[in-house]
């Protein structure tokens, strides 16, 4: 009997030990990124959406995070290092944030309101000791609403905005909190912090070789127990060339690659690799010049162009990895609404509108369009634009392309339609992030953001639209604000303010060993739920 008890105890102990081992040892995930370098590690990342995805929301937290737990619905904001926030009804420029208690940075120091003030100074106050031009370059333009801030007590922060601005929570979701104590321990030198960063996020950066690899390990003390990583290690490898990424995955050197080239996907699927994709707030459009004399000022021409494109047909070109546009935002967006103008493929209706506008088979409209041969988020711009060129020709719109390299394209996007450098182009094919009210709506059409003061490329300015933007900024109830955003989107579509073509689906290819990944409808992702099968 004693032997039996001892045997059962030994068995129970073994199971417990194995179970504990199984819980903490879930393998190493190696990811091939499209970036050419490890994103900036000090807090406010560079390298666009990929930077925040891999080095922002992994190592750091914002006061307000994005909810990355669901694949089935659009992502919304969720409490991060702030547990709740409110605006003063008497003075809608005054916000109060209650900060999470008991949070520590990876270096062991405590997160508090002084730390938030120190981080905001890092970005906004040029004569502060911790001001970092590199992080400021990334972060300052993301929080234009902020006028001032102060720590009310250890766990209460007050922010004053320049004018009432209900989009402040979205702006704060960009701002990552780094550790003041770590900066001091690294001789107040951001270059040293880059090698030994410290955030509050679910992953700790353990090692990195510039341009080659970064290795992260779980932060077992992470405040959100649901986001404590299950993996042993996460390895990031910059692999900017798409063929090199595909070969690295198929030869087993990485377990996951971002943005596989569409023509390699059948071979990957044939070899048992898994393609993960989902809708997310990405837009592939042509922005239209609204300068005097532009043919796009005529709503009939804009609608005809939108009706001339066979978006479903474009899917074949992209291996099905796209969502045909039904509006400016993806059809499942919480801000889609119910526009009257439907983006169908109706060449007869397109020709009727063009006839009404004074064009015909013997009198084609000539337009000039700026496009790039490649670029971040541009998908396959050359074949896609040639496809559009053919489609528009059926509606008697002849397109002449001005092709410029991606870096120069960004300059022309900033310069605007009236800049001599665009050489009279009346549209620009530019893709971007549309995850919040500012990046999704306001920045494209606000009268105050006409290029070069902002990215209203086409110089559009409309009183009714301006009023809607004002309402978005002054409606502090999230549900009411969503209703106005839907109304705004309906106007975007009904007025056919863009050539609305498609949305990317963020394809990523991975080994079948990768388990538990939930691809959220967001530019950022949660890597904590992932395990590696044997």
């Amino acid at each position, binding site marked *: 009997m004693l032997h039996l008890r001892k045997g059962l105890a030994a068995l129970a102990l073994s199971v417990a030990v194995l179970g504990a081992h199984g819980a903490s040892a879930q393998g190493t995930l190696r990811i091939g990124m499209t970036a050419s370098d490890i994103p900036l590690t000090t807090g406010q990342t*560079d390298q666009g959406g990929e930077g925040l995805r891999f080095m922002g929301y992994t190592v750091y937290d914002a006061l307000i995070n994005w909810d990355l737990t669901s694949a089935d619905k659009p992502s919304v904001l969720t409490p991060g290092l702030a547990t709740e926030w409110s605006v003063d009804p008497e003075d809608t420029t005054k916000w109060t944030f209650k900060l999470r208690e008991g949070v520590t940075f990876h270096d062991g120091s405590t997160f508090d309101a002084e730390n938030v003030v120190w981080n905001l100074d890092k970005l906004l106050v040029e004569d502060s000791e911790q001001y970092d031009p590199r992080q400021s370059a990334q972060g300052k333009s993301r929080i234009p609403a902020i006028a001032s801030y102060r720590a009310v007590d250890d766990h209460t922060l007050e922010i004053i905005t320049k004018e009432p601005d209900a989009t402040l929570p979205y702006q704060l979701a960009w701002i990552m909190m780094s550790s003041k104590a770590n900066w001091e321990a690294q001789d107040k030198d951001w270059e040293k912090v880059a090698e030994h960063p410290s955030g509050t996020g679910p992953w700790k950066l353990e090692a990195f070789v510039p341009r080659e690899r970064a290795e992260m390990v779980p932060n077992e003390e992470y405040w959100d127990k649901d986001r404590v990583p299950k993996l042993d290690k996460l390895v990031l490898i910059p692999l900017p060339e798409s063929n090199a990424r595909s070969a690295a995955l198929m030869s087993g050197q990485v377990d996951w690659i971002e943005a596989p080239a569409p023509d390699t996907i059948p071979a990957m699927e044939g070899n048992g690799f898994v393609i993960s994709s989902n809708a997310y707030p990405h837009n592939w459009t042509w922005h239209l010049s609204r300068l005097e004399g532009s043919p796009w000022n005529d709503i009939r021409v804009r609608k005809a162009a939108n009706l001339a494109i066979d978006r479903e047909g474009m899917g074949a070109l992209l291996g099905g990895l796209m969502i045909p546009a039904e509006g400016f935002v993806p059809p499942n967006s919480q801000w889609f609404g119910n526009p009257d103008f439907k983006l169908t493929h109706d060449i007869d209706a397109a020709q009727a509108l063009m006839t009404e506008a004074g064009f015909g088979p013997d009198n084609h409209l000539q337009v000039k369009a700026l496009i790039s041969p490649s670029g971040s988020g541009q998908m396959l711009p050359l074949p896609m634009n040639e496809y559009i060129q053919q489609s528009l020709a059926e509606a008697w719109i002849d397109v002449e392309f001005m092709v410029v390299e991606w870096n*120069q394209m960004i300059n022309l996007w900033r310069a605007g339609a009236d800049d001599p450098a665009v050489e009279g182009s009346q549209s620009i094919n530019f893709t971007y992030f549309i995850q919040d009210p500012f990046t999704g709506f306001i920045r494209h059409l606000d009268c105050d953001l006409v290029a070069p003061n902002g990215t209203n490329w086409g110089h559009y300015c409309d009183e009714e639209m301006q009023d809607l933007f004002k309402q978005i900024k002054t409606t502090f109830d999230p549900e009411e604000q969503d209703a106005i955003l839907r109304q705004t989107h309906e106007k975007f579509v009904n007025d056919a303010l863009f050539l609305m073509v498609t949305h990317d689906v963020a394809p990523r290819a991975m080994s079948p060993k990768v388990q538990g990944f939930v691809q959220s409808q967001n530019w950022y992702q949660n890597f904590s739920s992932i395990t590696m099968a044997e």
Partner: protein
Amino acid sequence: MLSYFLRRLILVLPVAFGVSVVCFMLVQIAPGDPLTAIMPVDATAEQQAAMRAAYGLDKPLPVQYLIWIANLLQGEMGRSIASGRPVADEVFGAVGNSLLLAGAAAVIAFPIGTFLGFLAGYFRDTILDRVITALSITGVSVPNYWLGIVLVIIFSVNLGWLPSMGAGPGGSQDWHWDWAHIRHLVLPAVTLAVVPIGIVARTVRALAGDILSMDFVTALYAKGLGRGDVLRHVARNAAATALSVMGLQLGYLLGGSILIETVFNWPGSGFLLSNAIFQRDLPLLQGTILILAMFFVGMNLIVDVAQAAIDPRIKRT
């Protein structure tokens, strides 16, 4: 010999100055903006202007050049705009990796190219000559990035024998001369070696063929020298030109491996240059081009001196 060396060394100075002006101006002429790499696209014009001033990009070009050259003379190459890291660290680390790759490719290419060239030259107008010539032309003509992709598909993806990318476990900073690391070098080095094999083989073939038809070779045979002794004389006569070609090829291997390093994700100067071009990272671009150009200049100097040591007639020209 010393005076010849000093004379050549003095000639390097105006070349170096010319190189510095050209590499500074070329990157400035290209359209694009270095701030693109470090600022969100919707940064305001005011924020862009502030950042431009912070990096000194608002100053007139001659002033920017003088600042750059003054810093360079003090051993300061500035910082990369995109990464913020010192350009010297970035460039010398990458050049070291490229030297490793170029050296491995040279070790493969030069002996094989020389051997094949001698064979073809010695057996001129035979089947062997034609086969080697055909192989050499193929080697020179095949785009090496295409060959690299094909080799990756065969040896990495299908057979799984060799890795397709990177500089080994732990990255290039953790390089060791063991199989775990050397296996990462095999495919890029072989791919990179194909063009110089062809060029060296064709050069040596032409040299050997020409020299073998010279009168002094007939005289050597008439004096009763054996085939081996005659070939030794031929080799010595061909060495100066062959060495000069190999020197230039080594320069091309270092600076011209941009496509190979991109295909194999090898963290060398070509990969660095390619990224710097796309990001318009001016300090990094200028630093990398300058170092690669100076490597060429240095290689030419070494080849000139070595040629003079092998063939004393050169010193008199």
